[in-house]
């Protein structure tokens, strides 16, 4: 027993050392249902893509995800289905207005400490400074404007609406960063289930084989 607890401790130590959470990130339960993803995609495709690209996502994948064909057609315009989602703003223009190219969003939900929680907190993290400009609690030097118009919202109902919107965007970006996550988890249950049965059988087989020794 003692040995196993040491082993378990080692595993805990190995797995917990990297789950240090950033201070005061708001937790978000990422949605994986189609309506949430579709509404998130709507915001991303009509608002975020104004400046950001999603170069690892093609329009075809949005359709494959289950988003209505006519919506995808509106977003892609005359581009073929196999086109990667590009930013509507040329890089030069972006650099001229913001000083740097806006990052690609395909992997953004995995590319920041805190992952989805960070994206969610960041989108809602805008506030009005005493000087009358907007700042962000989670990324003070951000060049991105307060796109959801969070700063200055005092009405709780309105804020709740923005929270929902931020959650939808985060959910869509989380899908974009890891499009096979659902498939992976679904397969994982079968794999673990199979291994549990197989290992249990091996355990009894081991007992049976080792029992030969005691007879001798």
């Amino acid at each position, binding site marked *: 027993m003692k040995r196993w607890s040491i082993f378990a401790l080692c595993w805990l130590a190995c797995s917990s050392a990297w789950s240090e959470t950033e201070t005061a990130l708001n937790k978000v339960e990422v949605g994986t249902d189609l309506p949430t993803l579709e509404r998130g995609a709507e915001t991303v495709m009509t608002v975020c893509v104004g400046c950001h690209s999603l170069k690892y996502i093609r329009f075809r994948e949005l359709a494959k995800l289950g988003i209505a064909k006519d919506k995808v057609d509106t977003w892609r315009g005359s581009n073929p289905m196999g086109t990667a989602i590009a930013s509507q703003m040329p890089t030069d223009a972006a650099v001229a207005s913001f000083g740097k190219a806006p990052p690609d969003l395909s*992997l953004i939900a*995995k590319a920041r400490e805190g992952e989805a929680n960070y994206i969610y907190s960041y989108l809602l993290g805008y506030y009005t400074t005493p000087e009358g400009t907007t700042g962000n609690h989670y990324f003070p030097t951000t060049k991105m404007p307060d796109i959801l118009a969070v700063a200055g919202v005092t009405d709780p109902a309105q804020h709740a609406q923005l929270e929902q919107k931020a959650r939808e965007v985060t959910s869509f970006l989380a899908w974009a960063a890891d499009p096979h996550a659902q498939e992976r988890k679904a397969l994982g249950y079968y794999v673990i289930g199979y*291994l549990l049965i197989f290992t249990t059988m091996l355990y009894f087989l081991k007992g049976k*084989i*080792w029992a030969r020794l005691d007879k001798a």
Partner: protein
Amino acid sequence: MVSRVLGWIDQRFPLTPFIKHELTDYPTPRNLSYWWNFGFLAGFVLVLQLATGIFLAMYYKPDVNLAFDSVQHIMRDINYGWLLRYIHSTGASAFFVVIYVHMARTLYYASYHKPRELMWWTGQVLMLLIMATAFMGYLLPWGQMSYWGAQVITNLFGVTPFFGDQIVLWLRGDFSVGDATLTRFFALHYLFPFLIFGVVGIHLVALHTVKSSNPSGISLADKDNIPFHPYFTIKDLFGLGIYLIIFCTFVFFVPGTFIEAANNIPANPLVTPAHIEPEWYFLPFYAILRSIPDMLGGVVAMALSVLIFAILPFADRTSIPGGAHYRPVYRAVFYVFIADVFLLGYVGSQPPTGYLVPTGQVATFIYFATFFLLPFISRWEERWMRTRGLPSELIALFEKRPPREKYQHKGVK
């Protein structure tokens, strides 16, 4: 039919005698605990890394402009590419968990003693090769942490007296980590596993010459040795099942655990990440590097911290077998050492500020003190144990088998 085919082969190649000698008749101590499963597991992980790695290499592009995209292509577009890549990236960490436990078991039972010194040293060569392979493999996804990790580590070789700059240039193939570095790291990352395979062969030949150690540290009487097959094949398979359950939980449910967030950003030589941190399996050594205020001293200490394990067969000067199994002082030293390694790992994972700096220095001191004090501790412990009277269990074992014969092995008859 089968026996005729086997007969045909056996006239030309000793297949049946080989299986008999190495498996069905190979004598294995009956009292091995589950800690003895980890050698087999390490072999399994090696094969899995090789198999997934070869398929990944079919789609991966070792070019600074294509590497990051090609990894995303594998993750998104290739059928089950995400599975191959997550098995491979999780497998790297799993490899270190397995070999560190394998080493810790050797330390606990002091299995490195005569006649297994060569097992210990070939194991050390394997560890160095695995570390080098993991380090080079980590550059390949060409993320921010890949790039800056390689930049920092290759830079360390610059402290070599006289040729420092030339060595760094030679390693990178360029003045800073770039396309030349990526291409050569890819080539070597593909080569090294085969070197590892070769050394594993030597490790196993040595093992089958000296046979497995066991918790008592004394070679057992013939009746307490049992054939490897089927007793240990089934035990290893059961252990493998447990291992795979844990491994697959990571692969399928939390595969991002061992991938830094910053490594999902393409490498950018112009932007240094706020906190460059090596993979967890290098953290204790990294903490030792940072604990020495002088750069050359730090690099020497780090190299020494990995290599110093080699002196153990000489440093542990005792004639009492079984390591921590029978020796209370050695057991205490073992646990202090393991706790110290965990402490160093923690210090290595944090930015070097405040009380962590002296903590790291004390932990580094304890790390090396363990090795340098062991010759004295082990002598003193043996005298103390002999005056106090050896454990009756140990005396019984000695009576069964006189001490001068304790390292002789006899096969199962």
